[in-house]
């Protein structure tokens, strides 16, 4: 090895290392130059951050391209946080702006602020109001509560991807063994009673709930008609509803009488806890069912779904949280074509049926719900027709409003939850209400300060 080096050193005046660097630089640079030169400019660029959506789109895009040939569509999977910055940068610079962009609910609000005419997405209302060949308008077909999430000052900037109704998934086998009838559970009080029966501290808990963040709390707050922001974008995290919900929520997951635990809210640890029977149930939006099927194959036939327990005897039996939208940017030279692609990717009857089969995600366009794909019994879920269950719940889904401060509010509320749980574990009900109120007010103030600071 070293004789080789010495030989090379004779030949190369400045030495081995710099020559290697130079060679690598030239070789790599040359390759990149050659490859990038060949790349064609696409007609339509679509960005998404979700690999499931990406896979689904990848299947749909060739059909669309064929139908509208010649057409070059560039479909890109961009990481969640990077997509945000990249989109913003592109919009500022006016360069490389994609035509169709998927945004997560949490980030969508940040693109709707500022002067309404400067927003980087086109108003889809005129498109939605058109009557098509069947005599219906998209505006009527799509669940209004989902459109509201992406509406700002009267303009609709995004098409909703989903409904995300929440059910409760439970271990039917264990319920049966313990003689519990799931149909008898109508309200949260019923659920909590059963919870006390089935919970064995440190061994088994009735339900998994998030005690360090808002993953469970936000959904439960929305069920009660609360939320983080109202239709005008005003902060609501310190509302009376929020306080009441938090006071009810914390004893469920902390303290001596709890029926819930949080081994994890997602990922392998979450699946393992369910598989082991450590938690008997969990909040289950439609999309989660397919993840469960994928990660817990050995539980097939042992899980089932039931509607969310209601707050009051005739209250809503479901809730919602988050979601995805598809927007068309203002830098799109052919909005009609973009609209055609958007509605094809999102609402085409055949496609959404397929999508449901693959991911169990319900689309927000009601006219597609009679497709057979939504009414098939699913063996995994003990033969339940989960599509029908979610469709029945879809109508009751509460409205969630987006805001540029959604993530900030979620973070702050998450801290309150973590703090409240810690407090309750130590002190129980003693001074708990004033603690909760104080903390919520404090964090609401912090968010409002940030909201006011922004001159844009």
């Amino acid at each position, binding site marked *: 090895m070293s004789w080789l080096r010495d030989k090379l050193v004779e030949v190369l005046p400045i030495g081995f290392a710099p020559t290697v660097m130079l060679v690598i*630089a030239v070789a*790599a*640079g040359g390759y990149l130059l050659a490859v990038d030169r060949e790349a064609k400019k696409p007609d339509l660029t679509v960005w998404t951050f979700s690999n499931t959506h990406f896979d689904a789109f990848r299947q749909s895009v060739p059909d669309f391209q064929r139908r509208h040939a010649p057409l070059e569509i560039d479909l890109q999977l961009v990481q969640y946080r990077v997509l945000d910055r990249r989109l913003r940068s592109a919009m500022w610079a006016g360069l490389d702006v994609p035509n169709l962009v998927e945004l997560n609910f949490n980030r969508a609000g940040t693109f709707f602020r500022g002067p309404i005419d400067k927003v980087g997405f086109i108003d889809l209302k005129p498109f939605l109001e058109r009557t098509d060949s069947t005599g219906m308008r998209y505006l009527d077909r799509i669940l209004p509560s989902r459109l509201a999430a992406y509406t700002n000052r009267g303009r609709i900037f995004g098409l909703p991807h989903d409904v995300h109704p929440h059910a409760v998934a439970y271990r039917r086998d264990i319920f049966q063994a313990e003689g519990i009838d799931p149909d008898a559970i109508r309200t949260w009080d019923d659920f909590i009673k059963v919870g006390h029966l089935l919970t064995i501290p440190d061994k088994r808990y009735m339900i998994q709930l998030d005690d360090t963040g808002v993953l469970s709390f936000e959904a439960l707050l929305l069920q009660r008609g609360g939320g983080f922001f109202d239709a005008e974008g005003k902060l609501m995290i310190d509302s009376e509803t929020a306080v009441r919900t938090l006071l009810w929520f914390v004893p469920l997951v902390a303290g001596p009488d709890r029926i819930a635990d949080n081994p994890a809210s997602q990922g392998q640890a979450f699946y393992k806890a369910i598989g082991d029977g450590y938690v008997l149930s969990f909040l289950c939006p439609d999309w989660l069912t397919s993840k469960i099927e994928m990660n817990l194959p050995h539980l097939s036939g042992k899980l089932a779904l039931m509607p969310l327990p209601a707050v009051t005897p005739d209250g809503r039996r479901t809730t919602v949280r988050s979601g995805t939208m598809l927007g068309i940017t203002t830098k799109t030279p052919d909005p009609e074509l973009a609209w055609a692609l958007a509605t094809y990717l999102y609402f085409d009857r055949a496609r959404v049926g397929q999508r449901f089969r693959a991911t169990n995600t319900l689309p927000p366009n009601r006219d597609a719900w009679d497709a057979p794909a939504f009414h098939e019994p699913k063996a995994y879920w003990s033969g339940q027709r989960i599509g029908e269950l979610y469709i029945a719940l879809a109508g009751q889904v509460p409205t969630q409003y987006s805001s540029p401060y959604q993530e900030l509010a979620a973070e702050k509320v998450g801290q309150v939850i973590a703090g409240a749980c810690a407090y309750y574990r130590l002190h129980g009900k003693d001074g708990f209400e004033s603690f909760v109120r104080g903390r919520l007010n404090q964090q609401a103030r912090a968010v409002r300060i940030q909201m006011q600071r922004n001159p844009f």
Partner: protein
Amino acid sequence: MKVIRVTLTYACLAVIAIVMLTPLVWLVAAAFKRGEDFFIYDFFPPPGRLSVTNFQSLFRQIPFLRFLINSLFVSSATVVVQLALSSMGGFALAKYDFRGKRAVVLLMLGTLIIPPEVLLAPLYELIYRMGLMDSYRGLIAPHAVSVFGMFLFAQSMRQVPDDLLLAGRVDGCTEFGLYWRIVMPVSRPMIGAFCLIAFMSSWNSFIWPLIVIHGQERFTLPLGLNQMLGVYKEDYGALMAGTLLSVLPVAVLFFALQKEFIAGLTTGAVKG
């Protein structure tokens, strides 16, 4: 007494060595371990269950090869540019007296104390205005100057005997010729050290590429792996396979340039 002390020393060293090496061994094991086996085997699975599926997943899920080439290009180009500029500048500092030399040295010393983070925002704005956003040039240009490199070369070039330079001048050599034909060849060890240090620094750089690069086609390996964290974080095996492949180039380079590297590092400190 002495035996106890010696045994204790070796025992300590052995324990620490194990602590240092265990994560690396785990990394290698994880790269060749199937996803399900993560919960079953702590380190290596039995030889029959070793698999390369992680690498297959890796290349299928993200354009790893492209990221690798991006990193190779950016890091090597950065090193070449830094080497040229720093060695020339160091030569000027070491062997010449010129007006403003004091000021230059003070300026450079100042930059060592000021954290580069204070420059992130305005540099971002500058790169944006220069139209270098989301480009390789935008990655390389701001790092074309290496103050550390300048000091390193100034230090080592000072050792070159002035007589050599004098002789060269008498022979009619140009100043650049002195630099290229006399001083640089003599500084080969320092050049080797610098190449490795600069390469490592560029290879591992994260925050600047994170801010400047948006298009996935131009991601360097740190950004590429970060993307995996966001999108495929459940695929532990592929993630570890990617991590392993990302550290190999530097490891290889280090093996080739070990001695020079240590010498280069310590020159800065012992004199500092």
